[in-house]
């Protein structure tokens, strides 16, 4: 960042419900400043009509994601100095691939509908009256499930994926990543149903391994690898001699 710059020129993609337009703002720079702080400053001091979303401020709720200089990021944990170019300017836009409600707020309902469609929820085999499953800390399937578990449903991967952009029905990396986690959960009782759900016309096979998802996931998850795992597992289902997925 240009340390001499006292202000930052910020361009924001806006939508008022009818029309798309852009606004430009001069935002004072500070040493400690995230993209969320920039957006907050604009709304509080320059343009009260700006709509955006956040909750936790620390990268846990996945509410604050937006496109920063064309790349999807969690705004609360993106320090301005890491994204500002030499000319002290910044462009901010809503996430792609979700309908914009207002300015930087997008409608995530389809994202979560697809989560459910991918059977991205646990189906129990035990009840609360049973003891907890004994799964050792070095259990292999569990280790695999753990690799993909810390998803905050921020929609960044979904927004980075061009297959989602091109194909409305595609379940997308987040839901498939969740499905893969559950496929590795030995306590789950619906693995076949889930495998069928992710092998349909909207399923994992539509992924072209573009890797936008794994590149941008702020929690360093690798949905692309999860999806590859699903592809292997569905193949195994079709081919008795298919590669084993132990």
């Amino acid at each position, binding site marked *: 960042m240009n340390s001499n710059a006292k202000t930052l020129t910020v361009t924001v993609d806006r939508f008022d419900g009818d029309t798309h337009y852009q606004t430009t703002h001069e935002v004072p720079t500070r040493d400690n400043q995230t993209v969320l702080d920039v957006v907050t400053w604009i709304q509080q001091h320059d343009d009260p009509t700006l709509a955006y979303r956040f909750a936790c401020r620390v990268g846990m709720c996945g509410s604050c994601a937006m496109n920063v200089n064309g790349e*999807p990021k969690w705004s609360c944990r993106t320090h301005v100095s890491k994204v500002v170019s030499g000319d002290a300017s910044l462009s901010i836009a809503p996430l792609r691939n979700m309908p914009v409600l207002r300015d930087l707020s997008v409608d995530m309902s389809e994202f979560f509908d697809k989560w459910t469609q991918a059977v991205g929820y646990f189906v129990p085999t035990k009840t609360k009256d049973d003891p907890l499953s004994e799964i050792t800390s070095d259990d292999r399937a569990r280790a695999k499930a753990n690799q993909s578990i810390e998803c905050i449903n921020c929609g960044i991967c979904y927004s980075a994926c*061009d297959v989602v952009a091109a194909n409305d029905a595609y379940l997308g990396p987040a839901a498939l990543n969740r499905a893969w986690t559950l496929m590795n959960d030995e306590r789950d009782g619906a693995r076949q149903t889930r495998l069928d759900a992710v092998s349909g016309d909207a399923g994992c096979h539509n992924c072209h*391994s573009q890797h936008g998802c794994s*590149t941008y996931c702020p929690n360093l998850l690798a949905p*692309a*690898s999860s999806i590859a795992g699903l592809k*292997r597992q569905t193949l195994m289902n079709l081919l008795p001699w298919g590669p084993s997925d132990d």
Partner: protein
Amino acid sequence: MMKHRSHPLWKAFLLHRISGLALALFLPIHFVILGLALEGASALNTALAFSDLPFVKAAEVGLILLLAIHLLGGIRILILELTHLSWDQQMLSRSAFGLSAIIATIFLWSAL
């Protein structure tokens, strides 16, 4: 704006797609030319002589390049999707591209 596409694996995807598409569109032409053999060796020869023209040669080398890119890139995807090898995909795609260039150069060399 499309900066989310600026990482190596997205470019690898694009290259794979373009090469596959080009192959799919070129193959019919290739088949038509070979099919000329039905009208006798001379017709095929005329067509092949056409391929001695420099720009046609260049196009052919380009095609070999595409085939190599698609083939090696395809191997990369097959490794990624079908095996448990967790090789560095960026490294793989760069190598695939490098190797494709080498193969195409060999072709160019032989064809000259």
